[in-house]
């Protein structure tokens, strides 16, 4: 059952990603991008990282995707209509993919089955965030504040 689910999710995610990368209309690409994140979150659920999956949906679909569509709205221009595609990128991407797959295939020692564990509860994550990872957490907080302020200052209209 989970194999079937896995296969479905994998196909869905990759298809959505491909759509996000190649669709002509920006808005469709952005929406496919959101779908892809749902797929990745589903992977996280399957792998037992429910919390990360939920955070991913929360952040990407609730915030980043909305930001992207807003930006698309604010920067509508006609140059988007011109067919503009760089085939060199395709080659590079395929080369990188082939290289990565070759490297993965060449590595013999990859484990095939996940080890059995207790599910990681949200409480445990919270405790870790407040103990072992408290400094990274603070840093990320500062980073997010700085990014917020920076983004605001960037887009503020200049007074004339």
């Amino acid at each position: 059952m989970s194999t079937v689910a896995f296969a479905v999710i994998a196909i869905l995610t990759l298809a959505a990603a491909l759509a996000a990368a190649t669709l002509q209309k920006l808005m469709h690409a952005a929406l496919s991008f959101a779908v892809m994140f749902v797929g990745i979150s589903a992977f996280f659920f399957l792998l037992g990282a429910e919390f990360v999956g939920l955070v991913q949906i929360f952040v990407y679909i609730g915030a980043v995707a909305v930001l992207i569509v807003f930006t698309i709205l604010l920067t509508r221009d006609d140059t988007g209509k011109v067919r503009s595609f760089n085939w060199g990128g395709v080659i590079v991407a395929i080369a990188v993919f082939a290289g990565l797959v070759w490297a993965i295939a060449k590595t013999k020692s990859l484990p095939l089955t996940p080890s059995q564990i207790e599910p990681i509860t949200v409480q445990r994550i919270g405790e870790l965030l407040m103990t072992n990872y408290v400094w990274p957490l603070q840093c990320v907080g500062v980073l997010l504040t700085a990014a917020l302020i920076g983004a605001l200052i960037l887009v503020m209209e200049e007074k004339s």
Partner: protein
Amino acid sequence: MTLPILLVISSGLFCIGLLAALSRRHAIFILIGIEMMLAAANLNFIAFWRFGPQPAQPTGMMVAIFAIAIAAAEAAVGLAMVIVVYRHFRSTNVDQLDRLKG
């Protein structure tokens, strides 16, 4: 569901992100591509955590959580920059943005 397959999927995602970042002229696509690559990296973190020798320690999850937070910040700033660039150049086509001097 084995680690190699997961890795192949995530490298596939990564390369599609790379494709978007390299091939599309619109600045937003580059951002989308970068977010995709970050997501692929997150998938790798989670996969390695789950299949790794110490899954009781959720280090991979933690890194993924922080990576998501940082990616969000990056997206916010990146999109703000796209808007500023658009205001300035009336274009979001990265081909036309090769001047250092505004």
